[in-house]
């Protein structure tokens, strides 16, 4: 069955932003359905305008559509108005390329960048007409899998997905597809075969037992084919980036071309999930980046390109890259965006160079207000340096400085919150001296969540009242002309933290919350904390036990059976150094034996941030 645009048209005129639901983007790939015996639907559990800028999905779309006999299409979460209209019309969730029901595909692959999207996954499965529970699906249904950063603790979603891919997806997705193609028989046989693919986790082949206090006692495979631990996938060399990027017909977030210049980060910030789970640093060669930018602009017609990485200024060839781009596109009104710059003169030079005489804003992420706390989180920046760089930034003509802070960090005191306020005022004062009344300081205050696989995984989430009080204090003290303050809902943070730290018993909570109407939880207008509280009560799980306990060294975490390459002992030692207020220089200068080289050193290739041979091997 194919859904026709005529059928949809009757719904589209009555929903917000109908352009989300019709596809037709430049560079969308529409292959002949019948000529491609294996069909993958890539699913993004948030609204189209956000999903369109997801790099992981774009990479897999490109790779899969380059495989013989395989076609890959896309689907995104339906906004609640469209979901209601589709249900009323009796139409299922469909793909944007050929308007096929998602249930007609062989494989449905969800990208899970963060945990607040979990209820949307259930909503999409339901709209697709698929049973929500993996156990209720069989070979008549598509295989439903997930990957992405949230998949590093997949346990809360273990009931719903047949398998997870943990780590880089570029090679693993192809192996998953080939395995599916050779195991067309019973679902169980397929899952057993998939469990053999490195980086693939099939939850049903593992039993979890719990202590009487509710903590995990053991995770044990119940099949000889199921590996333990599950090693994360690492691509030794980043394959060339996709360049025939989708160009949407409607305005979306981050409507621009993207080239990932490096993966991984050597800074070792202790709060940073991405920095721990994407090691080692893998840089793309300069020439490849330049070629890719050229191709992306040619294929898309974009005027803006984002050079993605976790820390732009750490890319070895960043200076050359920016200079070369400015030279090549001197006549082209190209906007270059460099995310995640550090607070230092060199970064101001870079931001200045990419602004090409039209400086707008510069983002500082000190994360914490005092030098002491920045030492604890391993992001040491002297306050004096920060103020000097702010001065320099305004002097170069930038009018806006964005300051990113977190509250609720381990070891935080009232002084640290006072310092956030103080620093914001100092930066505004500098801005006013240099730029006058046009100077703008945007202060963003988010709440720290102790993420799995980081040195802070042993630390509790800060209490709700404490967070609320700190937020109020900052809002009261950082106000007036030239300030804009943003923060997130601490109740949502609590749900997000539970979902990121949970075990597989949370599946019942997520399911219940969805049944009671939870979806688009990351969107303030849809988030309803009462639904979540009720879901917890109904399942008799105590959210506090997931959130507010200080963990001991021996505790088995629900995610301990996933090996990222960074050893738990290293994370523990980093946690101890944090308590002692000790920080380290960038690990390109000295190896701190995080475990990556012992685990993945055999994959070493030029472009790695780790030294060849490493001090660990």
């Amino acid at each position, binding site marked *: 069955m194919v859904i026709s645009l005529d059928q949809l048209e009757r719904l589209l005129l009555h929903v917000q932003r*109908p352009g989300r639901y019709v596809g037709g983007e430049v560079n969308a790939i529409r292959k002949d359905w019948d000529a491609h015996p294996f069909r993958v639907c890539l699913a993004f559990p948030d609204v189209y305008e956000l999903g369109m800028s997801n790099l992981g999905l774009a990479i897999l779309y490109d790779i899969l559509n380059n495989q013989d006999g395989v076609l890959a299409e896309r689907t995104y979460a339906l906004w609640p108005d469209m979901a209601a209209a589709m249900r009323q019309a009796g139409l299922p969730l469909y793909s944007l390329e050929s308007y096929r029901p998602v249930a007609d595909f062989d494989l449905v692959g969800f990208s899970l960048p963060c945990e607040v999207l979990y209820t949307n996954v259930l909503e999409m499965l339901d709209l697709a007409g698929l049973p929500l529970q993996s156990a209720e699906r069989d070979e008549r249904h598509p295989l439903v899998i997930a990957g992405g950063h949230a998949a590093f603790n997949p346990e809360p979603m273990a009931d719903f997905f047949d398998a997870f891919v943990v780590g880089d997806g570029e090679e693993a997705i192809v192996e998953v597809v080939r395995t599916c193609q050779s195991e067309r028989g019973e679902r169980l046989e397929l899952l057993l075969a998939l469990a053999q693919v490195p980086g693939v986790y099939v939850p049903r082949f593992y039993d979890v037992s719990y202590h009487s206090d509710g903590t995990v006692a053991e995770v044990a495979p119940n099949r000889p084919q199921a590996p333990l631990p599950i090693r994360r996938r690492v691509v030794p060399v980043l394959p060339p980036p996709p360049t025939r990027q989708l160009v949407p017909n409607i305005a979306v977030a981050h409507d621009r071309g993207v080239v990932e210049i490096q993966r991984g980060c050597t800074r070792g910030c202790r709060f940073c999930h991405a920095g721990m789970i994407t090691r080692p640093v893998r840089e793309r060669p300069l020439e490849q980046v330049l070629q890719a930018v050229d191709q992306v602009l040619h294929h*898309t017609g974009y005027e803006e390109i984002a050079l993605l990485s976790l820390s732009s200024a750490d890319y070895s060839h960043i200076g050359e890259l920016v200079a070369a781009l400015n030279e090549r596109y001197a006549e082209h009104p190209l906007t270059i965006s460099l995310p995640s710059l550090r607070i230092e003169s060199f970064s101001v030079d870079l931001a200045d160079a990419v602004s090409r005489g039209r400086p707008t804003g510069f983002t500082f992420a000190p994360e914490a207000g005092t030098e002491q706390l920045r030492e604890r989180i391993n992001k040491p920046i002297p306050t004096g340096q920060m103020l000097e760089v702010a001065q320099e930034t305004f002097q170069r003509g930038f009018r806006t400085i964005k300051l990113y802070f977190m509250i609720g960090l381990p070891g935080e005191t009232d002084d640290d919150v006072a310092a956030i306020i103080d620093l914001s005022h100092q930066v505004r004062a500098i801005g006013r001296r240099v730029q006058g009344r046009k100077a703008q300081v945007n202060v963003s205050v988010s709440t720290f969540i102790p993420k799995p696989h980081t040195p802070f995984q042993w630390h509790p989430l800060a209490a709700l009242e404490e967070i609320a009080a700190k937020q109020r204090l900052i809002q009261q003290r950082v106000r007036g002309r030239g300030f804009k303050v943003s923060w997130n809902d601490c109740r949502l943070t609590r749900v997000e933290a539970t979902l990121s730290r949970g075990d597989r018993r949370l599946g019942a909570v997520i399911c219940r919350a969805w049944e009671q109407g939870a979806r688009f939880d990351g969107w303030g207008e849809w988030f309803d904390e009462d639904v979540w509280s009720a879901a917890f009560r109904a399942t008799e799980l105590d959210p506090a036990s997931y959130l507010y306990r200080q963990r001991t060294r021996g505790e088995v975490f629900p995610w301990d059976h996933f090996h990222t390459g960074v050893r738990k002992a290293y994370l523990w030692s980093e946690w101890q150094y944090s308590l002692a207020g000790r920080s380290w220089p960038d690990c390109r200068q000295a190896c701190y034996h995080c475990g990556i080289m012992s685990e993945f050193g055999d994959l070493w290739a030029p472009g790695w941030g780790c030294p060849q041979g490493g001090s660990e091997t």
Partner: protein
Amino acid sequence: MTPQRLRITYAVDGPLRYASNLDLVRAWARATRRAGLVPLYSGGFNARPRIQNGAALPVGFSARGEMVDLWLSQRVEIAAARQALAAVLPAGLAIRHVVEVDEAEPALPTRVQAAEYAVTVETGEPHHEIRQRVANLLSAASLPRERRGRPYDLRPLIEELAVAQERAGAVLLHMRLAAREGATGRPEQVLDALGLEEGFFTICRQRLLLSEG
């Protein structure tokens, strides 16, 4: 080097029906660059390619004769420009013809006077009844109505209105409505005046009528 001003008449269908006017302008800008043509950028802090749509096409409408003025900073053969653009347009945009327009000519939107629409509407009303309503509407001296709380007269905005085709459960209406600045008729308003706004309808803007240059 003198820039070149191209006037493109184009059709909109399929997914592009759900693009806004701004989206369409952006689509032309991106297509121009994909085609390897060099747009002329307006000066200023945020340089934008100079592109001007004749009249905003409401979201959901298809069209057969929209017009856009597109400035190129480097002159090209018209046929070559057309071919290059046609090769890179998104599905749902199609070029019908391209002419070169003198730089001195007034801006395209100021020349748009009226637009013709083909409106298909599903209705259970008997066809003779609809014909009667059309006749009543045309013979009225004025049609006082309200839009967003503001009173206006719909009658002078209707230049032509006729039942073009009748089939079981649906009629095809032909409309020619004023589309001047401050005096723009919308097909939905006419359907409303005809008591046909409840039925499912599709609207195609057939062409834009320009004043004599």
